[in-house]
């Protein structure tokens, strides 16, 4: 097992490297000079000297392979370079926002799991009844309702009935846990709904598949009672694919955060991505894209490890 973990961990390095190369090239595909584009995007006129100075500051006047090596050396030391917009270190820009987004993502995952697994199981066990239909409606709607609209509706509701608006500043968890939760629970619900819809769907179909298995029939004919069959025999085995979905969707939560953080006025990674793109801050975009991809690759790694741990049949040399 430990050997598998190590090999699987080392396998992430070439993938990450390939991702870095692709992102690096992607930013260089931008038609025209990124410094010029960035500086004149506000409609202002800038002299050639200013552009040259900015290029030199960002190291963009060096040959392309040199720029790549610089970036790589920086990455190894966890230095993502500087933002073209604010001039701050990208690592710092990310660090001050990571806590909020991570907390939001974890809360959303908890909400999604707590909703999805019981709902999906219930729907599978009561297949074809109104309960099943209601759960299916819940998940079909979850995939269709945009999370930013759900957020807007929540704000609308709280504003009308409780005169509450999302606070302008973020309260960290350790400062005031109650205020922190009150601030994050609604955006977490807005993002988590879609997430739980996906997971509930997966739980239902995995459960349906497992319930058809021979060993479940054996369990019934042995006269085992219902909870033992459902919880110990069926759900345990059905949870394998559900783990995958929950793990990978966790990495993809950033896609929901970009819109939800905007609605709830939260200064997290999602908002940073939107800002970076609106400001055409290419160095920051480069760093953030790498962060997103690294998150996905890491989630994949964790899912694989959890899988190997949950299912003793899986043994990779």
């Amino acid at each position, binding site marked *: 097992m430990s050997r598998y973990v190590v090999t699987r961990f080392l396998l992430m390095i070439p993938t990450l490297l390939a*991702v870095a190369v692709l992102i690096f090239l992607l930013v260089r595909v931008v038609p025209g000079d990124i410094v010029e584009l960035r500086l004149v995007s506000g409609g202002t006129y800038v002299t050639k000297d200013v552009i040259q100075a900015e290029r030199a500051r960002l190291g963009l006047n060096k040959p392309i392979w040199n720029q790549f090596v610089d970036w790589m050396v920086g990455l190894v030391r966890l230095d993502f370079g500087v933002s073209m917009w604010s001039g701050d270190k990208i690592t710092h820009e990310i660090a001050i926002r990571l806590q909020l987004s991570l907390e939001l993502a974890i809360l959303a995952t908890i909400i999604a799991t707590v909703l999805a697994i019981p709902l999906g199981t219930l729907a599978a066990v009561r297949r074809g009844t109104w309960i099943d239909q209601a759960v299916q409606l819940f998940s079909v709607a979850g*995939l*269709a309702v945009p999370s930013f609209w759900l957020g807007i*509706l929540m704000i609308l509701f709280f504003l009308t009935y409780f005169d509450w608006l999302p606070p302008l500043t973020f309260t960290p968890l350790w400062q005031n846990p109650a205020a922190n939760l009150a601030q994050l629970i609604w955006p977490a619900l807005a993002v988590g709904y879609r997430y739980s819809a996906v997971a509930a769907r997966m739980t239902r179909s995995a459960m349906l598949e497992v319930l058809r298995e021979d060993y479940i029939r054996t369990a019934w004919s042995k006269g085992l009672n219902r909870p033992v069959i459902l919880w110990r025999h069926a759900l345990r085995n059905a949870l394998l694919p559900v783990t995958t979905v929950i793990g990978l969707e966790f990495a993809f939560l950033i896609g929901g955060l970009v819109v939800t953080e905007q609605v709830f006025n939260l200064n997290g990674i999602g908002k940073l991505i939107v800002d970076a793109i609106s400001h055409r801050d290419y160095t920051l975009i480069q760093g953030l894209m790498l962060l997103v991809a690294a998150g996905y690759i890491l989630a994949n790694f964790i899912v694989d490890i959890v899988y190997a741990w949950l299912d003793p049949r899986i043994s990779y040399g």
Partner: protein
Amino acid sequence: MARPVAVDTVSAAVLPLAAVRPHPLRRFARRYPLGAAGTFLIVAMLLLGIFANRVAPYDPVAADFGAMFIRPGPGHWFGTDAFGRDVLSRLLFGARTALVIGFASSIIGATIGAVVGVISAYFGGTTDLVLQRLVDILISFPIIILAMAIVAILGTGTINLIVAIALSFIPRAERVVRASALAIRATVYVEAARAIGAGHWRIIFRHMAPNVGAPYLVMLTAFLGQAILLEASLSFLGLGVSEPTPAWGLMLSGAAVNFARQAPWMAIFPGLAISIAVLAFNVLGDALRDALDPRLRT
């Protein structure tokens, strides 16, 4: 003299059969009522979008500062916004924007992805390996992040948005179609085609491509829903179509929250439109998947 008799026998033979086996579309509708409802909604949206200029009671972009924040009522069914523009008219024209971007990006993305997928499966070896590693990387970004990155390169606007969404779909389409194409490559008829000396491109386009039609269609329908959601999200973030073009996501950005207390209808109706549109394509996609690919039925 013989001809009319022949026609009679034909119709006599066909009619009872037709009574036993109803039209395939009718059968689909009976079996998948949700899918039929989705189709109905999509057709309705298409018609409303196409004829928006005839159906819409007002000009969607003309500001009327004498008619700001009018409540939904007989004059303005869905009320008016901060510029006095009729919300219903903007929704109808917004359907046009959503559907144009949705269809264009989904068809382009799914088709290019499908072609690359079939090519990857057919040639195998190094071609497949290189393409799959590339797809692996592109798939590690959520679609919206990939689309946003492409918008950062190309800039905003309707055409760029279509390109951004289409490009983000390609790796996902490639994955789905490659899986089906791998199975087709192993079939006897592909082997037979190769045996009679058919060229690579003939086998790819005449023998393999038509047979991935079912997964392609299912995928396309799923993409349509996603594309509408993506367009709305990007426009909401200010990275999609820009004012004054009527677009559902754009109607929800900024103003809708700022005037939430005064004019909640500005926030409610566009979101409802997005949800219904995406729902319609999703339920149709699910029904198509169940009907066309019985292996995936759950």
